[in-house]
Every structure is written in C-alpha cells, then in structure tokens.
C-alpha cells in the first residue's frame, strides 16, 4: 500500500502539470499520453515478478495487495479521465478562437486594401486640385471675393480628409474584439462618397470663381489698422537703407517696341 503511494509520488515528482494553453504557448502541438491502466498493469506485473522472485509473501497476500493497488489506480484513472475531458473542452474552445482570428485577419486585409485605394483616390483628387488651382493666368489679378469660398472649401476638404483618415484608423484598431456585423467597408464607401461630393462642389465653386470677374475687391484694410488712430513711431525720422538700382530706360524702350509690334 505504501509502495503504491510511493509510485504515485514518484510519478508526480518526475512529471509536471501543464494546461493546454501553456503547452501551446511553448510551441507544443502534441504530447504523448499514457493511460493509467497501463501504468497500473505494468506495476502489477513488476510487483508480481519481484515478489515471486523474493519469496517473501504468500500468494494470497500478494493478490490482496495487487487488488488494492488496482482499486487505487482506478480512482486515479477516473480523476485523469475527468481532467482529460476538461482539457478537450479547452482545446475545442481554442480551435474556435483560432477560426475567428483567421477570419479577422482576412477582414483586416480587405480593410487595408480598401484604405489603400481610398488613399490613392485622395491623392489623385489632390493632384487634380493642384492643377485646377494653377489655371488662372498669373498676371491677371484673380477675383478677390471668390477667394474666400475657395480657401474655405480647401480647409473643409483638408478637414474632411483628416476625418476620413481618423475614421479608417479607428475602424482598424479594435480587431481583437470586433463589433458583430460591423461593416467597415460600407463605412469607408460612405466616407469616400461624401468626400467625392465635397470635391465636386469644390470644383464647381472654383470653376465659377474663375469665370466670375472680381468687380468689388474684398476690403482687408482693417487687418492693417491697429485699432489706434495712428501708431506712435519714430519712423518718420529714420532713413531706410537705400541701394542704387541702375536704370530702367533700356527695359522700357524694349517693352514699348514689343508692344508696338516692332
């Protein structure tokens, strides 16, 4: 009886308990299992053989001891079986989570691609915008009143793009716990759509502003007035740095010739 306990102790001293999660994290995919019955049988055989050879105990005593050990091993076996069942459940749960992860990964891939194409679209639109802004002739004074809406629109556009980006980033972030049924691509499409609308409006505005002449220039004058009637200053008594700049007679003569068609 004591020897059986000793065997149990020896077994547990020479073995370790590890959960399946731990084993997995160690990179183990498989473990060798041995059934407790086999251990019991091996022990029983070993005990029989040893006792037979020693001639210390009579047969009855031996059988009784063996039976007792058998009972003991049976109870251990039940324990082990219960443990095994529990680990199977854990394993199944793990597999299910792995499946979810794969699905999430592929969705993340989709999202990344969608983001890239949205980005490309943005860039395209931006460069078109740049071209559009370069259209007015450099010498003709551009219409001042039209300036305000187009610069506002530009600001709005930039804001919009920033929002779009922020939204996409947010959509990507909580991949560990996705809201069930959350359709990110739809959200991206919606955002891209509103961006396109914005750009169309902007294009129209700029087109219109380029066509309409600026008869009434906006008065920025107040920006230059400090509020006080006249600023106190010593500037009237101070001479600024002067440089001689040659003459412009030759330049004017040439220009006049050009203008006169000569």
């Amino acid at each position, binding site marked *: 009886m004591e020897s059986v306990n000793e065997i149990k102790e020896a077994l547990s001293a020479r073995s370790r308990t590890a959960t399946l999660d731990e084993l997995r994290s160690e990179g183990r995919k498989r473990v060798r299992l041995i059934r407790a019955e086999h251990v019991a049988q091996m022990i029983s055989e070993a005990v029989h053989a040893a006792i037979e050879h020693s001639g210390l105990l009579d047969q009855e005593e031996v059988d009784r001891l063996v039976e007792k050990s058998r009972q003991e091993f049976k109870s251990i076996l039940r324990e082990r079986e219960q443990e095994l069942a529990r680990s199977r459940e854990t394993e199944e749960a793990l597999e299910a989570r792995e499946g979810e992860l794969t699905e999430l990964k592929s969705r993340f891939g989709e999202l990344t691609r969608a983001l890239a194409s949205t980005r490309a679209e943005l860039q395209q639109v931006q460069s078109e915008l740049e071209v559009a802004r370069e259209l007015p002739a*450099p010498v003709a004074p551009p219409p001042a009143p039209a300036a305000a809406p187009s610069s506002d629109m530009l600001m709005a556009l930039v804001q919009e793009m920033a929002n779009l980006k922020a939204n996409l980033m947010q959509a990507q972030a909580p991949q560990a716990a996705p809201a069930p049924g959350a359709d990110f691509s739809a959200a991206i499409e919606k955002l891209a759509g509103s961006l396109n609308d914005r750009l169309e409006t902007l294009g129209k505005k700029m087109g219109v502003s380029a066509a309409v002449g600026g008869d009434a220039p906006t008065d920025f004058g107040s920006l230059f007035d*400090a509020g006080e009637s006249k600023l106190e200053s010593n500037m009237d008594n101070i001479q*600024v740095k002067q440089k001689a*700049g040659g003459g412009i007679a030759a330049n*004017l003569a040439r*220009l006049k010739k050009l203008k006169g068609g000569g």
Partner: protein
Amino acid sequence: MTEQDQFDSNIDQGADTTVALGKGLDVGTANLAAAVQNDEGGITVNVERNAFLDIPSDAYSKNMLTKLKVPYVVHNGKLVVIGEAAFELANVFGRETRRPMADGLVSPNEQDALPMMKMIIQKILGEPQVPGENCYFCVPAPSLDVDNNVVYHQGLFESLIGKLGYTARAINEAHAVVFSELADNDFTGIGLSFGGGMANACITYKSIPCLSFSVARGGDWIDKNVANVLGCPRSKATAIKERGIDIRDPKSREEEAVAIYYRSLINYVLSNIKSRFESGQNMPSFKEPIDIACAGGTSMIGGFIEVFREEFAKIDFPIPVGRIFRSEEALTAVAKGCLVAAAIGES
C-alpha cells in the same frame, strides 16, 4: 539713341512731375524692397528686413532707439523694433525675431504684425506722386510642394497698397525678374528668383508668361537644414551662409553642409522646371537658345552660378539654353522688375 528718346518721352508724360510715374514693390519673406525712379533718370531701391522684435516699452528705451536710429512702433503697449535692427537686438537678447511672412506668404499666426508691415511699406514706398499712381507688387506663383493660398495673400496687399493711395497690381515674382534682367532678349527666357522663403520660376515668351510656379524652398530652407545637421540655432546657420563663403570650395564641415543644401535646392528647382515643361501643354517651342536669369538674396552666395551650371549640365534639360547668369543687383532685381511693369503701365 532711339531708346533714350523713348525714355524721355515717357518722362514728359508725367505732367507736372519731374519724375516718371510708377513704383515697384517686392513683398518678400525676408526683405521688403521698393523701387522708385529718381530725378536723375535712375532708380533707387529702399530695402528693409521683414522682421520685428517686441521689447518692454519705456521712455528710456524709446529715446535710446531714436538716438541709435533704430526704427520702432508702439503697438499694444509694447515697443516693436522694426527691420534689420530687430535681428541685431534679437541676438543681444538671445531671442528669435518675429516674421510676418513664411514661405513667401503672410503667415496666418502673425496677423497682428500686419500693421507693422504696413508702416514699413508706407515708409519705403513714400507717398504716391499722383493719386492712384501705379504700384506693381510681386506675388509668388502657386506652389508645387505646399498648400498655399496666394489669392488671400494677394488680396491683402492689394488692399494695403490701395489704402496708401496707389493703384495696386500684382505681378508674378519671377516674371518681374524677366522684366528686370532679360530686356536684351526681348523678354524671352527663364527668370528665377531665389528668395528667403521660396524659389520662383517663370518662363516667358516676348514678355508673356507661359509657365510659372514656385517651390517652398529658399534661404530659410537651407538655414533650417544646416541648423539641423549641425545641431546649432538657425541664426548661426544664416550667419555661416552669409559670411561670404564659396559653395564650390567649402572650407569646413559647416560650409560643406551649406554647399550640400545649395546644390540640392538648385537641382530641385531645375528638375521641377524640366518636368513642368515636359508635362505642360501649349508650351512654346524655342528654336533659339533662351537665357536663364537668376536673382534673389539666396543667389548671392559665392559660386552660385557655377554650381547652377554644373547641376544644369547633369540634367537633360528639355529646351536649348544659352547664357545662365546672375543679376548684378540680385537683391533688388525683383523690385526693379515690378517698377518696369508699373512704369510701362503708366505710359
């Protein structure tokens, strides 16, 4: 001497004034410059740095500044030192100057510096000789690399100059370089202005611009990058750059850094002209080689034109080019070009 005759007749048109009409104003990130005609038939350019520094206001300081011939304005209870002196004082106080403009345009976070800018402009332009006299001022072309609002900037200065009694007209900065430097070429060629905040380019055919653009790189960009690699303040980088070095022959690690960024700036501008010219529509085909005129404070460094020619030789430029030169008055060429435009507008 037909040229002289024509110039004289231009003067005669100035009714009861002895000086021909029209003024030119270079509104630059680093310098404000006004070109005016003088009674000897030549021109004078008044220059002031576009920078400020506020210091605590008291009677002693005001007296002192006036004695030292340092211009100031009192604004919001502070003594605001103006122009070149602001730089010197900033060094003494270990501070940075305030700059109302950045990258060629009024800077949105220096709006309350506008009244000071108005005072400088008023000072350098002087009173109009007749009400509504023409004043051409330069504006940068739309930028390739930053999102700038030229229209707002232009509207602002149209208002300001109008308030001073002039008829304000905007002209592209590099176009002004063409007016100033390419008369002998019938105003056909490429004008380049390398300023503090930007570099501007304009290609013209018989004075008509067919391509113009700007990049937000200039002297400030060089200063910033040199300061970065050397780990020193920007003002130090500016000082190294302006102390008369030759970028063909850098004498120290610091000068080396300046030379590297100069080369990079020149190459950047040239490759942009090339690619813009190649992708542009309705470009004139130049059969004869055209000249390239460079101006602006940044072009004043020793070896500029030589390095420019070296970089030019490296890229396969799409149009035949003859002479590449720097304006004899690099710092005032833009103002002079504005004046030419204004004077011809008056005749």
